[in-house]
């Protein structure tokens, strides 16, 4: 049976998720584009994941796994670790049974590339396609002249 609608991640869980998302999409080398965590996508990703309770529960378990691994290093929680140690813990978790589900990566990509700042960078308008749509220029049908000139190509039978 599917679990009910999940409760949102708490503040510490969202803070813990941010470096995970930055690992998926780090800042660009020139610093123009932010990492996914830096962009504040933890809340967006949480919201999307909550539509899929099973997946959300897996992510919560993985976040708990980060805290357990942090505790082995003497930290109260994952977010209390320095960035370098966080990276080590994330690598260790990724090799364990509590690794983050692959769909987290998919939804992180999805949330990143619908963010207005990222869309603007790539020249996309930051809006849904409807109801405005897009203008497309009329076709130059003289392009068909060589096709017409060749004549019929269907098989007569």
């Amino acid at each position, binding site marked *: 049976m599917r679990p009910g609608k999940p409760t949102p991640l708490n503040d510490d869980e969202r803070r813990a998720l941010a470096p995970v998302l930055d690992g998926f*999409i780090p800042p660009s080398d020139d610093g123009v584009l932010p990492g996914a965590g830096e962009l504040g996508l933890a809340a967006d990703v949480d919201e999307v994941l909550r539509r899929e309770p099973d997946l959300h529960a897996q992510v919560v378990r993985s976040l708990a796994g980060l805290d357990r691994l942090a505790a082995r290093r003497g930290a109260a929680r994952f977010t209390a670790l320095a960035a370098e140690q966080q990276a080590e813990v994330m690598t260790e978790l990724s090799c364990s049974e509590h690794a983050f589900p692959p769909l987290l990566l998919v939804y992180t990509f999805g949330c990143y590339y*619908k963010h207005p700042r990222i869309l603007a960078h790539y020249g996309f308008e930051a809006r849904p396609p409807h109801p405005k749509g897009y203008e497309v220029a009329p076709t130059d049908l003289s392009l068909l002249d060589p096709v017409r000139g060749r004549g019929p190509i269907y098989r007569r039978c």
Partner: protein
Amino acid sequence: MAEQPVDVLIVGAGASGAAVAWSLAETRMRIVCLEQGDWLKPDDYPGSREDWELSQIRDFSPSPNVRGRSEDYPVNDGASPIAASMFNAVGGSTVLYAAHFPRFHPSDFRARALDGVGDDWPLDYARLAPWYNLNSRMMGVSGLTGDPAYPAEPPKEFPLPPIPLGRLGETLARGFNRLGWHWWPSDSAIASQDYEGRAGCINAGTCLLGCPHGAKASTDVTYWPLAIRHGVELRTRCRVREITVGADGMADGVIYYDADGVERRLAAHVVIMACNGIGTPRLLLNSRSRHFPDGLANRSGLVGRNLMFHPYAIITGIFDEPLEGYKGPTGCSLMSHEFYETDGTRGFARGYSFEMLRGFGPVATALYGMAFGRVLPGEGHHRGYAELADRTAGIAAICEDLPEPGNRVTLDPDLADSNGIPAPKVTYRLSENSTRMLDHAVARGREVMTAAGARDTMVQAPLTMAGWHLMGTARMGCDPATSVVNEWGRCHDVRNLFIVDGSIFVTAGAVNPTNTIQALALHIAYSIKQRLSNLFDD
């Protein structure tokens, strides 16, 4: 109190069910259609939401198994390299289709006579031509007459001018021209201008997620409003479990579950199946009786056999310049039938068509890029994305599948839908002929991409999530020993049972089948109307 028998009971409100309902409505018979899905509203479609692209991952996936809606039924396609795709709602799979709308070629109806493969249809292109043209008017098809890949007479009629190619389409058209290959603006079931109360296309590019604008011709906005206005009753959230048979061996109605899961019976004088090439054999096989212990209308043993998909290859070109590929209908721009007809030098029988695809949206660019190993997490991510962003164009190769009895639909012994009705199981093997054809198509697709200016290509072949076209599982023919229905859709074994969906295809052609499905449905409806006084005679 038992409900009075209806004159005609149609099962399924998709492409074919809508067409046959509309055509029969003029008889003023009492016609009821049972549809397991529901009406969708423009606001239900994700194209107006900021997260519109994410919806294809789950809620608007083409796979019923991924969506998991109660209106859908699961399909066990674990024994097939191609996954079944469909949608259950008023409009059926036309709600999510690309609306690429070409016709079969004349040679498609004579594959056995011409090439010694498959079988010949009991009718020909000329017989269907008037129904193609009627369907074109009813669906509001956009296109350009004069395509040299088809006979000039009778002319293909289009009530609307073609969908514009856009920068991406013109780029590819020049590539085809450099190679001297055929191409033509797509026949598109998308209104390029306002038509019959529907708004013209605004090039939003969300066709595969439903069209909130109503420009795409799904049958919930074309045939159904007219059919209902003419008296057809459409009952939604009604899932048929089986067709029942009387003592005389004739169909006498159905047993179905209503929206509350209550089992009901509806008696009928004529039953018409319009459930697609998987749903129809599923229901026939689930309708066992003393007269039909192996499933209804299955004395030939062919119900469920000869399942044909169209094996797909997708060739995606990567260009240096922006193509504005996210502007315009996803699957409707141009098509090429250069390799449609059999050429003995190619190493395979029959052929394939090319359907040009627009580029990816922002999210799809990342996800497809990841699938191809071009947009990876971590270091190098932004460089990979920048190389693909608005710089891709796709071509789908749609390969003709040949009928093989071993490719089939059966009932799964364990899997069931939300009403407990056995789910279909698909067993399908890609043939050697299809494999060689896919290889040829990929090579030619790369060639034309290069000719158009692509600096690199990415290929998916066969495409897994491509079981949109479901055909052949209750084939048409003159001989009851080798076919399930006759040349006007009546089951050989049950003279008041008709099939109008893709199940009755004898061969698959190499184009999207919906136009042919609907032309056949109109032909069958006309045939029924012509024979009302002696419909059940030998």
